[in-house]
């Protein structure tokens, strides 16, 4: 998988391709109310920015809303939205990293504020997660924040369970070292 250009194309189309349409159609409002906070949490764990997390979650949910007739009938519409969040969060980070000065300014103007009421220790943890490689960060967020199993993550990220396991193991090792805690 490589960059496909400058436009940071969300994964909406590719995410739709593989999921069987087996469900009835839940109301979007009901889905939104149930899933939104979890999407914000996932987006925050990958972006470490409250504002970005809200936007990323909202955008992903909006993407689902625009094609709810399709997405809403998927077996796991939430997984579809998570995939959009996970991929777009990385695009957000990539842009942010490129905009060095903008990021520096954000640091003083509040753009990178953590979620309210988030303990400092958790802020630090998620900052370190955001420093991981793309796949490692995604695997950590999906595993811990979204509570997905390794097979589910493998399916969502289009890779093998072994690869997911490798990413998770290496991520834990790196995070343990950086956060000064035990690996196991």
């Amino acid at each position: 998988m490589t960059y496909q250009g400058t436009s940071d194309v969300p994964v909406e189309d590719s995410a739709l391709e593989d999921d069987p349409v087996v469900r009835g159609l839940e109301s979007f409002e009901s889905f939104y109310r149930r899933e939104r906070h979890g999407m914000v949490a996932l987006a925050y764990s990958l972006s470490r920015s409250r504002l970005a997390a809200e936007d990323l979650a909202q955008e992903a949910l909006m993407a689902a809303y625009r094609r709810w007739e399709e997405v809403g009938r998927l077996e796991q519409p939430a997984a579809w939205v998570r995939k959009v969040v996970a991929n777009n969060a990385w695009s957000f980070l990539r842009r942010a990293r490129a905009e060095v000065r903008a990021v520096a300014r954000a640091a003083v103007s509040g753009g990178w504020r953590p979620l309210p009421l988030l303990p400092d220790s958790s802020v630090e943890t998620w900052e370190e997660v955001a420093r991981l490689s793309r796949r490692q960060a995604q695997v950590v967020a999906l595993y811990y924040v979204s509570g997905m199993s390794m097979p589910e993550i493998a399916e969502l990220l289009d890779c093998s369970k072994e690869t997911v396991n490798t990413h998770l193991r290496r991520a834990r090792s790196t995070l343990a070292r950086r956060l000064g805690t035990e690996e196991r």
Partner: protein
Amino acid sequence: MSSIDEKLREASRDVHRAAETIVDRPIPQRLSRGPMIAAAAGIAVVIVMGVPALLTRGPADSGAAPSSLIPLDAAETSVLAATWVEPEVSAEVPDEVREYWALQGTLLSVGSEAGWLCPPLPNTGYSFFVEASDLPPELSIERPGSTPVESSFRDSGPVCSQPPSLVLLAFTDSTQSEATAGVSVWPSIARFDDWCPPDSCSVEGSPEEGIVDPSPLEDFTFFSGRLVEDETINGQPARLSTYQDSLQLWWVDSNGVPLYAKASGITAEQMLKVAESITIDPTTQVVDISTPLPADLQVVEQTPSVGIWQSGLSRTDVYGIDGASVAIGTRFDSSETAYSRYAANVTFLELADLGNAKAAWFSEGGGFLFFETAEGVTVYLEGAPTKEAAVQIAKDLR
């Protein structure tokens, strides 16, 4: 000492609890027509005042992106077969715009020896970013003389003038027989002050905390766009460039007011045509867009803006449109979502309520308050539950 697994589980519980405290945004509804036509089209023009006249020729155009094989040392060609490719560019961006080059490569057999990759940027003296994506866990990237980095680093200087110079993929494991990796290089046009002649322009200092700097110059000192070309607008020099998937334009209007505009979803030619029609009253700072704009921008044409700000963050540009009482926030990547959200329930405020501010509006959708003080300072607040509360907060700030 807790394990990293326990720490991550605790942090996950914390982030869920914290997310629960986020005020719900309006559940998406069908977009209304009328003023939202522009929003639905994903188009916006953002204008920022106060840009010094800076219009001189920039560095040489970087030309077309190369697509030849990367100049690897012969010893590494068996390690990595890679090609620098031009990325796909969205249809909205003119053909001549190329923002960065991407390396797409398949690692045929990964050895422990480092392989040097020298990006074939056509000009020297460019700053650039290098970022690797989707690296297999076995790989990392390094730069000469430094420790490995996981995903990205920034470097600058003569590119590949004496290779190996800057960019290195270090293959740290020999277990992976085949993998793909992407490396993107963002060439920066130049530092603003590198090619802006003295006395012609200046770079403003950092904004104070909590105050949004309306000047785009800070961003301009490093941005990931590419100069398209110098132009003239109404006989005055103008500069057109790219930023992300947007176009940026700096020019001086017929009143002598330096302006900056950013737009996406239109061509460079359309952008210049739009700019020709825009003037700003230097006293009232009211924007007058007097001539027809491209079809997708008809809404802007019909409703002159009264206040236009750039937040300083690339993701929250905003402007207000009088009459229709619509304010629109946009992002550099022009999200329809952002438009619809910010456009909801916007009301303009009595300027006297804010100490005779030049302009102010409040969005109930997100509790956003924007206003520009009489002194020209743009202030942005977020999270106010009501318009009245926002005004009170603003008063308390003053």
